[in-house]
Every structure is written in C-alpha cells, then in structure tokens.
C-alpha cells in the first residue's frame, strides 16, 4: 500500500529546523515555510497589479465603454502581460517548487540562502519592470518587446534579473532533491506530484536559458553595443522562451491538479506509469511549441513548421489527453469506492462541490481542456493559423489556459496553503466557496468573447479598429461579452484577494486541525493511503463515466478542429 510521508527520522538540530504538520503528517522545513510565504505574497501583489490593468484594458476593448486613451491602453497592456503571465505565475510556481522538493520528500531545504537570492532578484526584476513601463513612454513595447521596437535598457535588465532569479530558485529545487536522496530522506521513487513539478523545473531551466538568448542581445542592442539584431532571430528565441514558459505552467498546474484531487477526494493515481509517461511526453516534445508563434513568418519552410508546431506528432497533446483521463478517472474510482456508485455520473454529482479545492480543480480542467486545449491545437495548425494569427483568438485561447486553467487552480490551492503553511485561520469561507465559480464563469466569457471576436477578424493588441470599416457590427456584441466576462472575472479576483488578505491580516494564528475547508472533517489525504488495490481494481469502481466524458471531449475537439478547416477552405487562394 502506498504511504504518505516516509518514515526516515529527522534530527532536530543545526541542519533541521522543522515542524510536523498535524493534518498531513508532513514535515515542513522552516526555511521552506518562509520561502513559500514570501513567494506567495509577491505572487498576490503581482496578481493585484495585473488585475487592475486587466480591468482597465478590458473596459477599453469593450467598445461601448472604450475607457482609456491609446497610450494608457498600450502601457497597461504591457504591464498586464508582465505581471500576470510572468510574475504572478512564476512566483507561485517557485513556492510550489520549494514545497515539492522538501515537504513532499520528507526533506530539508538544502540551499535556503540561494533560494532567497533568487527570490530577491525576482522581486527586484518584477518591480523594476513595472516601474519602467509606467514611467518611461519609450518602454511601451508590450510584453513581447519585438525587436526592432526599442525599449529602455532597464526594461530588458528587469527581464534578465527576474529570469536569473527564477533560474537560481529553480536550481535549489534540484539541489534539494539530490541532497534528500543522498541523506536518504525518502526511498524509491518520488511522489507523482514531485515528478510533475520536476518536469516543470527541467522545462523552466531550458526556457530561461532560451529567454537569455533572446533578451541579453536585446539588452546589449538597446545599449548600442550590438549594432543589429535580426527580428526573425529574436522572435525565434523569444518564443523559445515564451511558449515553453507556458508549458512550465502546464506541468506545474497538472501537478497541482493531482494534489487538489488527492486533497479533496482522496485519490490514488490509477496507474503511476501512465501518468508519469504523460509528463515525460511534455518533457520531450513540448519545447517545439515555439513554432506556434512563427507559423506565418517569412523565411521558414513548411516542413520545419509542421514538425515543430505539431510537437513532433502531437505527442505533448497526447500527454495532456492522458492526464485528462487519468485525473478524473482517479477521482471517479475514489468516489465510487466511497459508495457513490449510482449510474454513470453519480460519483460526480456527489463530489464535494462546495469545497473550493474541488470546484477550482473542476473549473480549471474544463476551461483548460475544453476551451484552451481545443482552440490551441486548432490555431496552432500551420495553415489554420493564417485565419487566427494575431487576432483576438490567440488571447482567447491562452486566457482559457492560463487564466481559466492555471490561475483558477493556483487560486484554489492557495486556500489550503493559508491554514497549512501560513498557519492562519481561513476567513470569508463563503467567499472562497463561490470564488472558483465566479472566476470560472468570468474567464470563460472572456475567452469566448475574444475567440468569437477574433473569428470576425478583430486583431489583438489594438486600441480600436472598429472605425476601419472592415469589421462587422456583430463584434460589438462579442466584445461586450468579453468585457462583461472581464468584469465578472475581476470580481472573482477581488474575492480571492479579499479571502487571502483577510485571512493573513486578521485570521487567528493557529495550527490547522482539518484538511477540508468546508465540506467535512475527514482527511482525504490520509484516506487516499487506505485505498486498497482491491478497491482500485473492483469492477464496480471502474471509471466508466470518465470514459464517456473524454469521448465527448474528443467529439467536440473534432467538430471545432474540422470546422476550422472548412472556414479556411472558403477564403482566398494563397500559397
């Protein structure tokens, strides 16, 4: 039977400063605890900054309101990308890496000083980027800063500082694991969640190095040390950083999915080999994704683009489709084993829908897969990209993945970090119960509004093109859906920040007594250790409902994908 928290003893002394968590029985290194708190706080600070920008730019693109002037629109658009896509997510991931490489392995943090150095560099870089964009009009270059659009040298320097910081923090993840193994803190293989986080960490190293290859020459070029910088080369390197960075998010998010599923429904992975193989597919094939952004660039051959954009043979997509089966399947088995065995979906109806971790997980999986994944594969198809490149369909796709998917999952996970790591009582629990739903509905509308606007040709990163006479009047409707969605999502975001801040600032400091926040006093994490092989293999408990769900997903995928080929076939001939 699987066990939680290996039993190797810790020595309280010079090296080991730890506490034992009463709820999870995990040992938490005090350095790790402080690092998680610091990273989580910075993540939320960046989320607030990026969220304010999100509201204002969405209210500008909502044509009926059209709030900001053009300069402020582009300025806040730049900020929004930096604070959300980079800072919020990466700070949160670093907290996750510190947690995964210590607490889940029964290990100490072996390099706290290095980790703090990384954190400080990231903080300085992140805040500096905000300041430069806000106060230097020349640095309004959007988050991608395509050469030869030249920003202030400090703009590039802030990227470099942040990236170096993240790289250092990521390296401590590997140090921790090596030291833990050497000190025999755990035996055998590492838990699946750590395996997933390690996938994310390996991808992060590669990603950050490629980011350096793009940004360091840009920095030198902005200082006039480098006379020329080919824009095509910059785009290739930039997306070698920009796209795999999203795959880091993907691997981290899927790891958090497994954790949330275990913490709220007490799952055991159905087949470790299956899930780990899916992570391995990410590791090997997902890096090719940078081609997604270069599909209609001059100078690249069809063969290069087709091989790269398809991740060799959609093998990274296969990885995601495997997780899309294995996580709900594990939940179905765990819930059926508890007796919720009626019909195909009795287990799902009886899930803890009022538990924020569970609802955040379900919302995240639906938005990520059904909207984000399907639209992403479709617009990432070489020829179809001609219909979508730089239209609002692109942000429509990645708001479903990164906002509806990753951010919702991270937010849901935070509600457990507060009692378990901050050791503060969670306040405004009712808000936490509703928050994933509000945020999910908002982000879904944002994505759908953007995608439908993009289908009508509305370009992204554009203050206003309705005057051009080219865009049909129906975009006023779809842009309004996007705007209303953004307002709802921002309300969801405010609810999240309110819960977090109220709990941290006014919550009573106490040791957590239970794992679940609202849906019960049982401890699914410990229950998962009691799920026997017999229960896992019992015919009664097999995930029939999940199989129906994934096949329904495949049908939707096929319909959307093929209808895009049909759309392409109706346009002008071009080659």
């Amino acid at each position: 039977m699987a066990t939680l928290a290996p039993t190797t003893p810790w020595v309280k002394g010079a090296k080991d400063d730890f506490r034992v968590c009463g709820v999870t029985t995990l040992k938490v290194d005090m350095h790790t605890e402080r690092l998680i708190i610091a990273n989580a706080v910075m993540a939320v600070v960046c989320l607030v900054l990026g969220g304010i920008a999100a509201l204002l730019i969405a209210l500008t693109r909502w044509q009926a309101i059209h709030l900001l002037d053009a300069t402020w629109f582009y300025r806040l658009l730049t900020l929004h990308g930096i604070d959300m896509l980079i800072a919020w997510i990466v700070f949160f991931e670093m907290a996750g890496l510190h947690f995964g490489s210590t607490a889940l392995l029964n290990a100490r943090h072996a390099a706290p000083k290095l980790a703090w150095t990384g954190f400080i560099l990231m903080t300085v870089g992140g805040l500096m980027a905000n300041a430069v964009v806000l106060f230097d009009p020349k640095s309004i270059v959007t988050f991608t800063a395509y050469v030869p659009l030249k920003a202030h040298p400090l703009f590039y320097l802030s990227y470099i500082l942040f990236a170096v910081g993240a790289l250092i923090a990521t390296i401590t993840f590997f140090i921790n694991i090596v030291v833990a193994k050497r000190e025999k803190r755990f035996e055998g293989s590492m838990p699946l969640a750590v395996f997933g986080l390690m996938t994310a960490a390996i991808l992060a190293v590669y990603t950050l190095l490629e980011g350096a290859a793009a940004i360091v020459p840009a920095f030198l070029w902005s200082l006039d040390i480098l006379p020329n910088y080919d824009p095509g080369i910059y785009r290739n390197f930039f997306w070698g950083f920009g796209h795999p960075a999203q795959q880091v998010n993907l691997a981290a998010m899927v790891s958090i999915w497994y954790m949330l599923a275990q913490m709220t429904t007490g799952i055991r992975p159905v087949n470790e080999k299956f899930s780990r193989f899916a992570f391995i597919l990410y590791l090997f094939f997902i890096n090719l994704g940078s081609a997604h952004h270069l599909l209609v660039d001059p100078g690249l051959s069809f063969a290069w683009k087709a091989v790269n954009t398809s991740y060799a043979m959609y093998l990274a997509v296969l990885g995601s489709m495997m997780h899309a089966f294995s996580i709900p399947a594990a939940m179905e088995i765990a819930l059926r084993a508890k007796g919720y065995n009626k019909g195909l979906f009795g287990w799902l109806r009886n899930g803890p829908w009022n538990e924020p971790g569970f609802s955040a997980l379900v919302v995240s999986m639906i938005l990520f897969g059904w909207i984000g994944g399907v639209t992403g594969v479709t617009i990432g198809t070489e020829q179809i990209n001609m219909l979508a490149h730089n239209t609002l369909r692109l942000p429509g796709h990645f708001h479903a993945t990164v906002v509806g998917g990753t951010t919702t999952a991270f937010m849901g996970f935070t509600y457990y970090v507060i009692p378990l790591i901050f050791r503060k009582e969670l306040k405004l629990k009712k808000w936490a119960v509703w928050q994933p739903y509000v945020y999910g509905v908002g982000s879904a509308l944002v994505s759908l509004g953007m995608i439908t606007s993009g289908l009508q040709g509305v370009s992204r990163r554009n203050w206003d093109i309705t005057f051009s006479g080219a865009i049909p009047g129906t975009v006023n409707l779809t842009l309004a859906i996007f705007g209303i969605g953004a307002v709802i999502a921002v309300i969801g975001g405010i609810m999240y920040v309110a819960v977090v801040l109220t709990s941290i600032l006014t919550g009573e400091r106490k040791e957590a007594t239970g794992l679940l926040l609202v849906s019960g006093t049982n401890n699914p994490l410990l229950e998962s250790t009691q799920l026997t092989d017999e229960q896992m293999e019992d015919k009664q408990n097999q995930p029939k409902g999940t199989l129906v769900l994934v096949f329904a997903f495949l049908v939707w995928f096929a319909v959307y994908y093929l209808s895009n080929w049909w759309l392409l076939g109706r346009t002008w001939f071009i080659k």
Partner: protein
Amino acid sequence: MLAPEKIWWKPLGRMEKTWLTVAFVWCVFLTIMMPLWYFMGRQNVPTETYRVTPTQFNEKVTAFAEQYKVGEDTINGVTLPVVEAPAGSDVYLRASTWQWYPILQFKKGETYRLHISSMDLLHGFSLQPVNINLQVLPGYDYVATITPTSTGEFTIVCNEFCSLGHHTMIGKIIVK
C-alpha cells in the same frame, strides 16, 4: 503526493489502453492533416522569402507604383496611389509606421505575386473581412501568391503592435 509503491511499473488497465489508443490515433490524424492540405488544399501559408534591405524594397515599391498607377484615393487624410498591375505579375506592398502603401487593385480570379516587407518595425498584414493574416518583418521580402475569390473593397489592418499609432495603420485592397 503519496510515495508510490515500491513497484509501480504495472500494465495499463483496459480503459487506459482504449483511451490511449484512441487519443494516439487522433494525434496521428492531426499530424496527417497538415501535409494533406499542403498538397491538396488551395490555402497554404506562403514560404517564398528573400533578403531585402528597406532601401531596396522601397525602390521597388516606388517604381511599381509609378509604373502601374491607375488613380488616387485617401486613407486617414493621406492621398495614396491606386495601383493595378497585370494579372500574374509581381505587386509590392510596403508597411511602415503607420501606413500601407500603395492601394492595390486586383481582378477576381487572377493570381498575383504579392511582395510584402516592412521599412521599420514589425507589422501584421491582416486582410479583412477575408481574414488572412501574415507577419511582416523588416529585412524580409515575403512573397504570397494570392488569388482573390471575392470582389469589393478590403481593408488591411495592422495586427502587430508597432508603437503608439498602431491602430491607425489601415490600408486597402480593391478587387474588381
């Protein structure tokens, strides 16, 4: 979060095998679609590209506009030549902050070799409402062999951010 059992290398269950097979077949189908369309479809992404300096390209555009000018029209208060070259010939479109030059005139059903390049920053060629989108880089002469299949006035929107006047960068293609 659990430490796995000592031996976790176990055979896949029936449902896992089913889904893995179906998903893999779908991935293979997705892979095949692109080369299939490449050889059979009539809408493919152009790949023909030449190195060109902004000065060289500008000379070509100017000579082209002078040779085939058929009229004038205004966009954003600026008067631009309307240019119609014979079917099958090379036509040139210049992107610069924040203008598409010149206005092109095509005949429906005829094929043209459309050269696009930028004088300065990155721009995005977005033909609306046809919804064909291509990336435009300085230093690259990107050649799209294009055949209009509908008539009317079409707008070229710039869909790559090219600093603060980006949204005013509008051009026109007329198809008769």
